[in-house]
């Protein structure tokens, strides 16, 4: 006797939106690892990532009534989770650092210093501007295609392509891989 097929995300989401907690539990557990990984890479450290993950999960729960099935659940959930995660990280960034003056602003690692110290991936990613960091993480960590990333971020696929290229390029530089020769076309951009 074959096992019953797993319900689709969309079916679970519909049941969860009507108050079915079993379906919601199953839906959240199905996607938890990838949501946590997304927030971990966007946050750059496990402490911020933990709160960001919680915010992302709750944002999905809050938003379920607005999920109308016109998009795949995954696309919708990545958009909600990404925005919630980034909102949480921005809130945390605005809080004053304990022990420092209220107006102290932590300096972002300078590119040259980052290259000199060969940062790990978390530190390097944190030095890549968010506008480039997010599509790189969506592409390389989650394996989303350009069209899905475009839907998640609400930008054209061409913009996704250029941002991923720019983000990977910055990351390569930060991770200690030498920039190409001066006449490289990307340097003129």
């Amino acid at each position, binding site marked *: 006797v074959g096992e019953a097929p797993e319900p689709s995300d969309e079916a679970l989401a519909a049941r969860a939106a009507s*108050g079915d907690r079993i379906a919601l539990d199953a839906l*959240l*557990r199905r996607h938890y690892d990838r949501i*946590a990984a997304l927030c971990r890479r966007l946050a750059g450290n496990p402490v911020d990532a933990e709160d960001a993950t919680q915010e992302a999960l709750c944002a999905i729960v809050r938003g379920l009534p607005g999920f109308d099935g016109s998009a795949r659940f995954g696309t919708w959930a990545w958009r909600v989770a990404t925005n919630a995660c980034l909102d949480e990280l921005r809130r945390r960034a605005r809080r004053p650092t304990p022990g420092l003056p209220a107006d102290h602003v932590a300096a972002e690692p300078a590119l040259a210093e980052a290259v000199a110290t060969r940062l790990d991936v978390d530190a390097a990613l944190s030095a890549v501007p968010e506008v480039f960091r997010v599509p790189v993480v969506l592409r390389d960590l989650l394996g989303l295609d350009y069209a899905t990333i475009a839907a998640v971020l609400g930008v054209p696929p061409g913009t996704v392509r250029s941002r991923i290229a720019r983000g990977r390029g910055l990351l390569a530089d930060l991770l200690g891989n030498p920039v190409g020769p001066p006449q490289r076309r990307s340097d003129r951009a």
Partner: protein
Amino acid sequence: MTEHLDDATLSDVLDGVGAPPGDHLATCADCRRRLDALRQAAAAVAATPPPVPDAVRDRHIAAALAAMAAAPPTGAPARRAPALRRRWWKVAAGLAAAAAAAGLVLPLTRRGGDTGQLAGKEAERAGPAVAAAGAPLDLGAVDAASLPAALASRLPPPGAAPVPPAPAALRCEAALRASTPGVGPLLLAATATWEGRPAVVLAFGARPGPVVAYVTAAEDCAILHFARLP
């Protein structure tokens, strides 16, 4: 001067999209090095971060379920007071902590001179279900609507010993405490049937005071329902 490939073209090569870059890549060591650098950067991001501990995952999901219990996502989008629009999961997750804090009151209350009188009144209200406590409790078939009443008539009165847990409940109590350490003292653990499934109902808190009840699946202790009782 040689016109090297830009990062966008090389990034396309990594993803297998866009027009083929032609012969240049095969003959240019600089561009191949740059392609390797981009590939290493992508691989570094692709490396799965350390897994989240099971206890943290379970706590996150329990808080999301609890938040759903506080504001069920049915019908129109939930409308909340501005103060609750953000950080509501912390409020929801804090219910367990509140129950734990209420639990601190219990030992003090027990020392009070009128505790026995209060316990007697509660016992009168509790009825025969509590008076007959001593055997593992089974609530029978319950759902979200009937659970509060099913629990209210069976919760032990202040000062009384908790209802002995059903053996099947011990494992789920341990699992819940592992993921939600702030749930406070156990008041009641019973078997039940929830939506046709064998379940375990766990109630934490102190009497008098708020009680937080979890319905978990008997099979794997997954949280099926969460409710806060007055």
